[in-house]
Structures are given as structure tokens and as C-alpha cells.
């Protein structure tokens, strides 16, 4: 669900650096120095499509909705970075896949619910992502395949202000590159 963001950062960076050097206060309303180009790829006229011709990488396992790999979010209790039994099962499936595919890398994005202070949550989000990272490494995944990012409370997937929303936001997402 947040996978598109990954590419937008890179594309957006160039336009940002240009805008950032100027006098930002003079920006007319509606003009955004940091642009999100997340949908630009699909808006281009030409579309490429991949074909599996016996290369080393098999995309089907990641794309298979009935594979345990289709689950890519690990949820946490409030102010906790302990991985539940369900979470461990999920991590184990991804560890197996990643150790068998050392050329595949994954971003571990840590998030928290909105409660408490934002900077503490930024650190808590990172601790959650690092807990997942550590577990993956213990199961044979190379550190080179893993990247940890924390968004703290800044990127909620559920916008309510109750436990139903909070429980969905206390999470680590596994984001495969190119997926």
C-alpha cells in the first residue's frame, strides 16, 4: 500500500533540491517544492511489461496472493517492539525467501500510532523495524538485503483516533524493491 512512495522519493529529490535553494517563502500557493511523482510511471504513454524467460529471479512467489509472502505487515502492541507469534511466522516466511534470493532487498518501514510524542514515536518506529531486521538476520538474511526506515507516527494507514485505527498503525511494513 505504501510501496509507491519508494520511487517517488528518488524522483522528487531533484525537483526538491532546486526549489530548496530558492526563496521558499515566495512560492505561489499550490506549488509544491517537494513533488510526489508516484503516479507518473503509469501515466506515461508507453508501458513496458516483463516476461519470465528463465532468469534467476522469479517474481511469481512474491506476487502469489496465497503465498505466506503476501502478508507483509507485522503489528505491535502499544509502546512495544516485541514481535508476536503471528509476526514471527510471517518473518520466518520472508527470511526463507530472502535467504534463498540474496539479490532481493527489502525495506523495513517502522511506524507507530499517533499517541504520545512524535519524536519518541520516530525512535519507537525504528526500534520496531530493527527488531524485524534482527530476526531476519538471525534466520540467515544478509544485512545487505535489509534497510530500516522509521516514519514514527507520521504515516498512518488508518486515520481514526481509537484502538481499531491505532492497532493498524503500530506496524512494520516489508517493502520489496520493484514490487
Amino acid at each position: 500500500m505504501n510501496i509507491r512512495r519508494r520511487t517517488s522519493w528518488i524522483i522528487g529529490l531533484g525537483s526538491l533540491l532546486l526549489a530548496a535553494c530558492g526563496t521558499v517563502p515566495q512560492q505561489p500557493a499550490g506549488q509544491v517544492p517537494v513533488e510526489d511523482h508516484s503516479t507518473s510511471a503509469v501515466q506515461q504513454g508507453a508501458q513496458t511489461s516483463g516476461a519470465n524467460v528463465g532468469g534467476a529471479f522469479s517474481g511469481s512467489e512474491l506476487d502469489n496472493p496465497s503465498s505466506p509472502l503476501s502478508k507483509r505487515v507485522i503489528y505491535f502492541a502499544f509502546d512495544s517492539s516485541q514481535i508476536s507469534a503471528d509476526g514471527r511466522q510471517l518473518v520466518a516466511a520472508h527470511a526463507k525467501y530472502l535467504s534463498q534470493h540474496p539479490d532481493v532487498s527489502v525495506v523495513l518501514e517502522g511506524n507507530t500510532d499517533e499517541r504520545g510524542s512524535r519524536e519518541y514515536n520516530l525512535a519507537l518506529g525504528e526500534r520496531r523495524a530493527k527488531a524485524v531486521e534482527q530476526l531476519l538476520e538471525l534466520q540467515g538474511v544478509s544485512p545487505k538485503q535489509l534497510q530500516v526506515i522509521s516514519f514514527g507516527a507520521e504515516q498512518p494507514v488508518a486515520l481514526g483516533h481509537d484502538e481499531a485505527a491505532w492497532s493498524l498503525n503500530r506496524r512494520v511494513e516489508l517493502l520489496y524493491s520493484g514490487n
Partner: protein
Amino acid sequence: MKSSSSLALVLNNVAKMRLWLLLGVLLTSTAYARLNIEITQGEESALPIAVVPFAWNGSGTPPQDVSAIVSADLARSGQFVPLPLDQLPQQPTQAQEINFGAWQKVNADNLVIGRVAAQGDNYQVQFQLFDTVRGVQLAGYSMTATAPQLRRIAHQIADIIYQRLTGQRGAFDTHIAYVTVQDVAPGKRRYRLNVADSDGYNEQVILTSSKPLMSPAWSPDGKQLAYVSFEEGHSAIYIQDIASGKRKKVADFHGINGAPAFSHDGTRLAFTSSRDGNSEIYVMTLATGQIYRITHNYAIDTEPTWSPDDHALAFTSDRGGSPQIYEVHLDDAGHPVDTPQRLTFDGNYNARPRFSPDGKLLAMVHADGSAFRIAVLDLASGELRVLTDTHLDESPSFAPNGSMLLYATDINDRGVLAAVSVDGRVHQRLALKNGDVREPAWSPFFDQ
């Protein structure tokens, strides 16, 4: 903006009703302000005062209604109840016109009169403050300003009156910084870092991004803001010059970069980074970019705040199992001289500390159970006082005179700013017409 009837539910005594009636008049002139400030609870022992509309000597209408700005400032502080304009017994503009007896009859113990005169491109503003009980002048000033400076002059007049009558320096002639968030398309948000006058006027956007912005922090001279931006896909700390818009990325280490805080002498920046594997507090010497590690603990250490003399940092740590506030003392070089000592013992969550300007109080986000509220800890007595009764409060920031705390909260699913006096008696709310507002930071005094 709330209707008078809904606000009346909050304001339940006569003194507070009078306050609201006055605001009803003033708010019509503030309709174009981006941030609307409402007083949701005033001080019961607020001082009665009358601010008579200032005389105008010039063509057309004056560029700013100076006396209305003064009156609104005083009302907003919660320390004063200005008399509604339709209850003024007379409208003197010169001292010799004042009938002190008439003002005593309407219980206006203090009276402000003044005059604004056009002088070429400039304006001369004169005002006088009187004690109507004793029939004496308490203050009188004459100032010259250009049209764009008139709002600032009005805030300075309010500061003088506030100081003369309360004994405490006023903080009306100050600024606030805050972050606004708007949904611009499904799944797409616009984050803005703004600077405005303390009354919400003159809002200026200093940064716009499609990625989160957080933790703005003022330099002690009020000329720069440090903040955290995710524009490159991860947290990094920038310092931006407010006037020119020029900025510099100062911390972009591996891992998280957050919680910037300028030292009071302006030479150092405390911040959080996980560059060494875990979130720790560091201090950067701004002139050289050299950094020094302050904490060494496997737990989360973050949100440093400098004591007024720059010889201590308070910060959030969960080294004891839950987030609590700790303090470490520093030598002249900014290096720790002791092991961090825990300061908070009430509640299961205390975070994001801020020292009061006199160093006697520590404000924080406090939870004891499920509600996250703003509290102040009296450092001498150890007494913790919860000031708010909302549930998702965060980011407390002291006014530079220590009288009020600005913070962010959630009202009816919207992020709003609110302010509370340090005694918990006066409450204000600052709301945008649409979108969320969060991460407030009150500026220092502007002494130049």
C-alpha cells in the same frame, strides 16, 4: 469558528460572558486570519480594563485598528477582561477628557487611551495607561512606525500594559511556528511549515513538502528554525534562515535524525540520531559541525531540551521500561558530568520535556492510563500538575515569558493548537479553517 451559543456552554459565569461579547466584536475584524484564536476558558480573577478606540488623525481609515489589536491581545492572555465597546461610558482620547468617576462606576480599574496620526509615510502612535481608582497615569509612550509595523507596535503596547499591570513581561510581540497538513488528493498530503505572529496573523509559509515535517525549533535570536523533514524518504535535520529562506541540512546520518534543540547561547544543537545503532542524544557545535555523543544506553533516548543556563539537558528515555524524563548535567564544553537522573515518577508515560524560561518548571506530555495530556513538573517540589483534559495532547512549547504553554491536540478529528496558562486556568484554542495544525513552537523574545 464557534458560535456564541456553543461557546457559552464553556463560559459559564458573567465575567466570562462579558469576555465573549467583546470577542464577538473583535473577531469580525480578524475574519481573514488563518489561525483563529478563541478563549475557551478565562481567568476568573482577570483584571477589568477599558481600551478606548484610539483617535485617528489622517485621511481615510488607519491601516490598522491599533486599539482593537491591543484589546484583543489583553483579552487573549486571559489575564484581562476588556470592557465591551458599547459599554464604554465615554470615549476620551486625551488625558484631560477622562472622567475617572465614570470609569470606576463600570468597574474599569484600568483605562487605555491613545492617538494615531499620519505623518507622511509614517504614523505616530501615542498611548496612555491610567489607574482610574487613583486617577493617575501608569504608563505613556509615543512611537513612530510605518504601516506594516503598526500591528507590531500594537503588540508592543499590549506588552507594556501587560508588564505594568501584571509585573511580568508580555509576550504578544512574538511569533509562533507550526506545521499544517492538508489532504490534496487521495493518499496525497501537503505539509507546510509556517511562521505567524503570536495572534495568528501574518502567516507565512517557509517550507512546503509532500512528505512529513516535524519538530520546528527556534534559534535563540529568532532568526532561524531547525526542523525535521522526510523529503528524502527518511528523517533529516535542516536549519533554515527565516528571512532569506536559505537552508542547510545539518544532520543526515544513517538511521533516524530528529528532535533538534538550539542551546540558549546559539552555539550548539542537541538532537537525536541512531547513527551508532540506537537512538541517542548528540550535541553538534554549529560553527564546526563537530558532534559529541551525550547518552550511551540501549534504550530510546530522544527529545533533548536545554536548561536555561545550557548546563543540563532533559530528555525522554525508556531505559526504565516506559518513557520518562531524565536529566544530565553538562560542563562548559557541553560534555556530561554525571549519569542521567530520572525526574518523573508520576504516570506511565512522560515525554517531550521543555524547560520553562526560568528553569523552575518542566512541561511534558503525560499519560497515566490512556489520555495523553500536558503537565508541568515543579522541579523544586517534584509536584506534577496536569493542565489539560483532552486526550491526544502533544508538543508543549513555553511562551518566552513563561506564562502560557502552546501545544497541539485533537478536537473532533482535527489537529488544532491550544494554549494553557501554566496555572491551568486560562485555555485558548487556535484552529485552521481546514486541515490539521500541529507541532507548535513559540519564538523567543525579539530583542533587536
